[in-house]
Structures are given as structure tokens and as C-alpha cells.
């Protein structure tokens, strides 16, 4: 009994080893995976704002048909004049130029939502928070900085929609009584064309689209999965009874 109690105590303490590291708190992104209109809106934002610098080279334009769009609609609204609807979402920016202008090549966004998942939240949460955490910082080459990814090379592409904000740092006492500066919120310097709620909603759509783009087969996978599991459960039940019927003979 003593040993079992000791084992339980150690077992109870083991989760303490899993304490997560400190990082910027991520907001929870809304789930737009079942909202086709939202995903289409997200595709529009993506093509207009992201595809100038970032490529999504694994994403074929005509796959957008899965979002309920016709090829003509894609050609008319979501394609640059030089691209073909059967082509991939590539960009004209040469990596050499990108390195010179930004210091780094803007990463391909095809599967970025899957890459950014972690302990702090899903990849969707990460990007949702990231795109809403830009602030004005004159010490940076682009004039922008970001609370999620400090000293990011990316400018605030969506600044016209969100507006210009600065961060407010407040004095805060830590455990030892020293005074530190801690993040205490944003101050709007100049409002954008969207209200904060509208902007959050737009980013929700954009990130929802990016999540769809990272795995277009996801909806099919889950739909099929229900049938597969139903079938296999039935099969397992039959196999169980078949086994029982044979083993009755074994004395």
C-alpha cells in the first residue's frame, strides 16, 4: 500500500515537468471551416494582400473551386493578369530581391497554418493573433513591429484596414519588487477603414482560408472518416462474435 501511494505521488508530480514556456498569450481564432462565404472572403484578402510577397506554391488556383467558386469567378476576381487558373500561386518577387529588401525571403504560406501550431495554441490562433498584433515602431526599417514575432521583417500589410496603433508599456512590479515595463495594450493613432470588430472578423476569415489552404482535403477526410469508422466498428463487432463462436469449441 505504501509503495502504491508513493507511486501515485510521483505520478501526480510528473505533470509539473510539462510546464509550458513563457510566450505572448495567443487569442483564440474563430472556426470558419464550415463557412464557405467566410472562406471565399478570406481567399479574396489572401490574394489581394499576401500574394504580392508571399508565395503559396503548392496551392493551385483552380482548387478554389472547392470553395464553391467557378473557374470564371476565379479568373475574374482572384487571378493576376499574368497567371493561369490552372497554375500555382507563385509570386514574381525574386528571392535575391526579397533578401535585399526585407533581409529574408517571405516564407511560402501553403502550409504555414500547420507549421505554426504549438503549445500556446493552434496555427490558426497563432496567425490570427499575429496579424492583429502589429504596432508602429519607428526604430524598425519598415516602421512596424509585432508583439507575437518580435522585430519581424514583415510590414503591417493590412494597416489601411486596421489603422495605425502604438503600444502602451506600463510599469509593473515583478516578484522581487523590481519595476519592469510590461505590455499594457494598444493605442489607436489613426483609425483604419474597418472597425476593430470588423477587422478581427476579416482576419478570422483570412486565417480560416489559410487553414483550408493548408489542407484542402480536410473536410473530405473527416466526412469519409465517419463512414470508415462506422463500417470498421460493425466489422469489429462481427469479428468479435465470429471469434466467440469458434472459441466455444475450445475446452
Amino acid at each position, binding site marked *: 500500500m505504501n*509503495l502504491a501511494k508513493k*507511486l501515485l505521488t*510521483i*505520478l501526480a508530480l*510528473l505533470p509539473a*515537468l*510539462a510546464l509550458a*514556456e513563457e510566450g505572448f498569450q495567443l487569442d483564440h481564432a474563430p472556426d470558419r471551416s464550415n463557412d464557405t462565404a467566410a472562406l471565399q472572403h478570406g481567399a479574396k484578402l489572401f490574394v489581394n494582400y499576401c500574394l504580392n510577397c508571399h508565395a503559396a*506554391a*503548392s*496551392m*493551385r488556383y483552380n*482548387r478554389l473551386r472547392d470553395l464553391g467558386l467557378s473557374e470564371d469567378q476565379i479568373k475574374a476576381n482572384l487571378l493576376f493578369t499574368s497567371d493561369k487558373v490552372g497554375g500555382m500561386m507563385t509570386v514574381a518577387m525574386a528571392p535575391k530581391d526579397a533578401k535585399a529588401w526585407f533581409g529574408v525571403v517571405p*516564407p*511560402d504560406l*501553403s*502550409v*504555414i497554418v*500547420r*507549421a*505554426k*501550431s*504549438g503549445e500556446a495554441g493552434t*496555427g490558426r490562433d497563432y496567425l490570427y493573433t499575429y496579424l492583429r498584433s502589429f504596432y508602429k515602431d519607428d526604430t524598425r526599417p519598415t516602421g512596424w513591429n509585432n508583439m507575437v514575432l518580435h522585430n519581424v521583417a514583415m510590414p503591417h500589410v493590412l494597416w489601411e484596414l486596421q489603422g495605425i496603433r502604438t503600444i502602451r508599456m506600463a510599469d509593473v512590479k515583478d516578484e522581487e519588487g523590481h519595476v519592469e515595463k510590461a505590455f499594457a495594450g494598444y493605442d489607436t493613432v489613426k483609425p483604419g477603414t474597418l472597425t476593430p470588430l470588423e477587422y478581427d472578423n476579416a482576419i478570422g476569415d483570412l486565417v480560416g482560408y489559410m487553414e483550408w489552404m*493548408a*489542407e*484542402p*482535403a480536410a473536410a*473530405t*477526410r*473527416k466526412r*469519409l*472518416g465517419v463512414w*470508415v*469508422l462506422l463500417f*470498421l*466498428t460493425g*466489422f*469489429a463487432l462481427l*469479428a*468479435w462474435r*465470429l*471469434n*466467440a463462436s*469458434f*472459441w*466455444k469449441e*475450445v*475446452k
Partner: protein
Amino acid sequence: MAFHETKFPADAPVAVKAVGWIDDRFPLSKLWNDQWGKYYAPKNFNFWYIFGSLAMLVLVLQIVTGIFLTMHYKPDATLAFGSVEYIMREVPWGWLVRYMHSTGASSFFIIVYLHMTRGLLYGSYRKPRELIWLFGFAIFLCLMAEAFFGYLLPWGQMSYWGAQVIVNLFGAIPFIGPDLSLWIRGDYVVSDATLNRFFAFHVIAIPLVLLGLVAAHLIALHEIGSSNPDGIEVKENLGPDGHPVDSIPSHPYYTVHDLFGVSVFLVLFSAVVFFAPEMGGYFLEYNNFLPGDSLKTPLHIAPTWYFTAFYSVLRATTADFMWVLMGAVAAYVAFLWIKARISTITKIAISVIALLAIIGMLPSVLDAKFWGVVLFGSSVVIIAFLPWLDHSKVKSIRYRPTWHKYLYILFGLAFVSLGYLGTLPPSAVRTMVSQICTLFYFGFFLLMPWWSAAGTFKTVPSRVVFHPH
């Protein structure tokens, strides 16, 4: 011997005549009966005995899905990552094949670890089944190599840097290390050259070796006959028909039994494939969705979950830990002098080697990185020695002293803890716990000749414990 054609009556079914024709020229029916149809196995197999069949199923699954993946995958450093996404998006059902392969890989290790646990619990490796265990150990080594080579192929960040770290470990070997690493990589860093050769190893070289070893594993098993949860040698008690009284033919009894086991596995497997293929980042690591970049080192490089236990042992071997190891080696040699029933010459030889090792562990001689690699390798290899370390009077845990069960539970906890800690970045507390678990892990094996024989054993029954269904 002259050829003898089996004669069938004129009205015999075509199938019977066809099989008869083959049997005259190839031992088809004999093989079927010897290996499965009339292979008599103990009737008291429990849950733990499904994992051998499941391992074979997953091997076939990996080969079949692997073949289809190879049709579209491009083993080139600039094309590999994109080709995987091509499979996921453009190849019809490509996403399903990919997820089955990645889930299959992790499933293979879960199954193999549980299969090895069965061996530990029921003494399956005891005489005369040592060779089955050794073939199995070789399969385990090949499986780890196969997984390691396969993991580089998607060319993600974790693929690239995991390979970089592990191949660099070979550089820790004195004198030949750096040249050895260069030879393995085919380049000074992991590059396209490495990818191409790892592709060859993963797709054909190791699978061929694996198939050969699995055949040997099964042949060795069928030669002796299966053991059982009671550890009783069923062939010592034959019935009037010449078969063991406690055995049943595998067909149909274990055919339907395994069919049920396989169906349960497929339910769990499909649940993961269709609803959680990433499995929280353990089966498909998040960082691997970033293309491998030789200029961007990830903050936290860890191997896939199935290697993390042994990786923890490597990381636990810090410079400070070397002093503990020196003490442990000295204490073990002292213990051997007092307790081991071996000749004095052997004891002297062991002491000389131990002394050289202790000198080698001094900070100025061989650094902790080398000893980390030694312990890393040893933590895997020591498993192979189980048949000669286990001196228990009985095979099965059912008839061992009760306190042995607690030792096994602790061992399991130590192994799982090491595995879990290996997925996390190190910290002072975590390193300390890893070191304690490492000492317990090695102690479990190295002291087994003595503790496994100690205590009051229970009487092993003459007939297997079987409750009719």
C-alpha cells in the same frame, strides 16, 4: 527420388486438382500447415499476444503505402518538400496514402514496444527462444534505422536538423568520427547527397533486410513453438494425437482471434488517420511543415517520439553526470567482485576495462558527448542481453514474487518518463529526473542476474490457466 504425380478422382473440384498440381512441385500446403494452418499454439494467449500479428500487418501496410508514395515523391533537396504537398493535394487519394504511412510509422513503434513488453512480462526470450529475441532485436534496430532514414525524406525543418544532429553524433567517436560522419552524409553537412542515399536505404535496402529478419524471426519461433502467458513449455505435455494438450491449431482459432484483434487495431488506426493525423504534433511534427533551411536552426531539435527515451539518456549524460557514472561503474565492479559467480581472471579483466573507462570519463580525457553517445547506444543494445540477464526461476511474471511486479512497473514508468522528457527542451529539473531514470534503467538490467533470482516464487501449474469462452 522419382517424381510422383498425385492422382485425383475425375470428379474432384478444379481447385483441389490445381493445389495438388502445385503441391507436387512446391511445398505449398506443407508451408501453410507448418507455418499457420496446423501450427499448434498454446490456447491461453491473451491481449499481449496480438502485437506480433499487428506488426506484420503494419509492415505490409507501410510497404504498400510506401510504394504508392514513391511513385510521386521526388528525392531531391529542392523538390522533396513540394512533392509531398503534391501528393497531399493533387494525387487522387494521395492525402490518405500519406497519412496512412505517417500514422503507420508511429503505430509500428507503439506495436513493437508493446510486443517487446509482452516478451518482458512472460519471459518469451528465455531459453530456448533466445535467437527469436536476437532476431527481434535486429528487427528493432533496422526499424529505428528505417524510421530515421525515412524521416529525412519530407525535407522539413525537423527532418533536416534531426538528421544533422544524429549524424553528427557519430562524429563523437574518437579518431574515425568526423570521417565517418562525412561518409554517412556524403557531404560536409546534410544535403541533397544525404537525401538521395537515405532514400535508397529507406525504400529498398532496409526493407529487404527487414523482410529477411522477419522471416528468420518467425522460422525460429515455429522451430521451438510459441511460449504462453504462464511460461509453461506446452510441448512437454503431449496428447494422444501427438499435439500438446494445451495447444490448438492456429487455423481456425487464431485466424479468427487475430482477425478480431486486427479489426480493433484498424478502428484505432482509422480514427487517427481520419480525425487526428498530426496527433498533437507527435505523429506529424508541426515544425516539419516548414521546408528544411540549413541557415535556420530550430530553437528546439528533438527526434520523433519513438526515439525520445533513448535521446533522453543521451541528454542526461552531462559533464556533471560523468562523476556519478564513474562512481556507478566503480560500485558495480565492486558488486561484481563480491557477488558475481565468475572466475577471478574474468573479474580482473572486467576491473581493468572499468578502470580504463573511468579514466576515459575524466573531463580531460573523453568529453561527456562521447560518453553520451556510448550510453545512448548502450541503452538500446542492453535489451538484446535480456535472455542472459534474466535468472528468474520462472518465465512468467505471474509466478514471480509480487515485488518483481513493482520493479517492472517502475521500469515502465522510467522508460515512459524518459520518453516524455525527451520531447521537451531540457531544464535543470528535467535533466535531474532524466539522470535518475537513466540510472534506474541501466540498474534494472545490470542488476537483473541477482534481483531476478531473489524472492519467494510461486508454483507454476502443470497445465495452462485457461478459462473456456
